[in-house]
């Protein structure tokens, strides 16, 4: 039980407009990820939902009830803070027990709950330590335990995995997803890591400079980015954007190339456009109907694959290739383009021009 709806959140700190009309609708039981770069307003959004930030405008509804002015304690939310905010004088045990103590649970209940949480998050050994004696990753797990120890209306998590090392992060990602499924709890999860967003989310809201750029499932955000910025932020290696314009049934690149004009686009002739091509929709190993020619600029082996940088005129195309690919910088290459999966953006507004029919 727990829906979170934020409407038109506005918040400025002096001259900085941290939130500029943020609207989020988090359905009951969903894992909702707010994705954005540092400084986008993610933390401020969470704090606004939690009632820790006084809003300039906008409302927060919890379970359909207006909770905009409510005190944090009455909102029945649990939060994992970006910088943990573990109580320095309290042991790990007392930190985890704190939400239950505030609710006057019996010490038997508390002991059982803390034990459950500590085994879930593998921190049994740490219970008698104080936060100063923990590593960053351990603190983060304690912060998670403190949030998960009770069943609030919704969990708010502010980059809870960023400080873990990669192995633990991947492990915790699966673990969190599993916990979410088993509890059926509503989670609002903030991250700047698009892999985390795509792998864990039921829904993603992409945030930039206090404005929501797009809300959708991970697939929607990845496959149909609403604008060039979302396209560039989501996906690794980042999407390649080539300047061009439409001429009749062709796309003419600023660097002199031409490609057939995709059927799906609504772009009008004469406008400055950006052709967005993801690395996996390009190939240097196959030939296709549509291709671009350029020269090899560099190879970036990543183990399971190699990213080939191809220089087309003065623009770089990132192309995904098998790890066995070889080549010499300067070598001429032909890059096959899967135009059905390409994206077109208006160069001025940045908005997607890919028609709805895709």
């Amino acid at each position, binding site marked *: 039980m727990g829906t979170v709806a934020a409407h038109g959140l506005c918040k400025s700190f002096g001259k900085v407009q941290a939130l500029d009309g943020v609207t989020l609708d988090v359905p009951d039981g969903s894992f909702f990820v707010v994705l954005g770069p540092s400084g986008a307003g993610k933390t401020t959004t969470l*704090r606004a939902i*939690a*009632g*820790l930030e*006084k809003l300039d405008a906008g409302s927060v509804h919890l379970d359909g009830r207006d909770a905009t002015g409510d*005190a*944090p*304690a009455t909102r029945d*939310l*649990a*939060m994992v*803070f970006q*910088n943990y*905010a*573990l*109580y*320095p*004088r309290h042991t790990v045990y007392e930190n985890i027990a*704190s*939400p239950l*103590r*505030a*609710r006057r649970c019996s010490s038997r209940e508390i002991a059982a709950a803390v034990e459950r949480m500590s085994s879930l998050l593998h921190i049994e050994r740490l219970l008698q330590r104080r936060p100063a004696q923990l590593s960053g990753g351990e603190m983060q797990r304690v912060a998670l335990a*403190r949030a998960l120890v009770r069943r609030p209306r919704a969990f708010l998590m502010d980059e809870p995995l960023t400080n873990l090392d990669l192995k633990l992060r991947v492990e915790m990602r699966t673990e969190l997803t599993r916990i979410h499924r088993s509890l059926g709890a509503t989670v609002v999860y903030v991250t700047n890591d698009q892999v985390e967003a795509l792998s864990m989310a039921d829904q993603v809201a992409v945030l930039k400079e206090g404005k929501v750029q797009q809300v959708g499932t991970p697939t929607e955000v990845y496959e149909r980015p609403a604008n060039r910025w979302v396209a560039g932020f989501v996906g690794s290696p980042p999407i390649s954007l080539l300047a061009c314009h439409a001429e009749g049934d062709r796309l003419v690149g600023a660097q002199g190339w031409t490609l057939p004009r995709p059927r799906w686009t609504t772009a009008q002739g004469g406008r400055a456009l950006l052709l967005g091509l993801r690395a996996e929709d390009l190939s240097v190993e196959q030939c296709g109907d549509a291709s671009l020619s350029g020269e090899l600029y560099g190879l970036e082996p990543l183990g399971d694959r190699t990213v080939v940088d191809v220089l087309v005129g003065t623009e770089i195309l990132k192309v995904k290739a098998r790890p066995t690919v070889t080549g010499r910088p300067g070598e001429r290459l032909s890059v096959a383009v899967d135009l059905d999966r390409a994206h077109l953006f208006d160069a001025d507004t940045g908005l997607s021009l890919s028609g709805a029919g895709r």
Partner: protein
Amino acid sequence: MAVSVDEAVSTGPARDHPPPARRLGGRSRSVLEVALLTVLAVVMLFPVLWMIETSIKENRDVYAVPAEFFGFTVTMDHFKDVFVGPDGGRSALSVAFLNSILVAGASTVLATVLGVPAAWAYSRFAVKAKKDQLFFILSTRFMPPVVVVIPIFLMYRQVGLIDTKLGLILIYAAYNLPFTIWMMKGFVDEVPAEYEDAAMLDGYTRLQAFRRFTLPLLVPGIAATAVFALIFSWNEFVFAIFLTSSDSVRTAPPAIAGLIGGTTVDWGLVAAASVVFALPVLVFAYLVRKHLIAGVTLGAVRR
């Protein structure tokens, strides 16, 4: 105070940047440094030593010309006179010391009880015109007590606070409050607000969050601030001499001053009273010296 700058620096949290080795111990000081420090110590401490010596000399030795530094008879009579009156009962000075303890203690407690929450509020909340308010509060300290003592005297006479301990307690608390707020605000600023945020999400109210999670972290700061307030109230002379007159109300500073000015001055008694007066603050400051250093170096060690 008996704390060297070196000690203050090396006990501060600036451990990451150890001071140059030359500064770490006394042994490796240069000869010049030792010589200068010795001269300085003698100059600074001579009046104190002289006071202590006078307090244990017999009157005969006190007035001896030339003065005897070493060959005098030690006596505790002056200290007895501080506490026991000529009639065998309590002396006026001992009453004054008790008054000083009460007035300094109560005014410090009052200033702390009011100042700590105020500092917390100024640190945590968006108060309108916060900077102006804080400056105004501080500006009340720009004035020396002498400037305001006449109007306060008149007001106190109107409301019947003249020549009462309560009157002194109130004026000292009022005078210490700005200082308490400013110093405590520095300490509250150092405690991340997130602890309270986390506590509120745990289910505590704002005040509970402050009491349970922030206040314990402020104890060293409160101790440091209280010592400074206490020292001010303990030493305060101007308000005390203007606003009080009777022996049962007077605090120690005007009482000691009152010993001087008759036809003869009992210097032994004055010295003994001064030693007794200086001791509590010295002992107290020594006991809380760590906190004092935390208070003094506040700002200097900010990350």
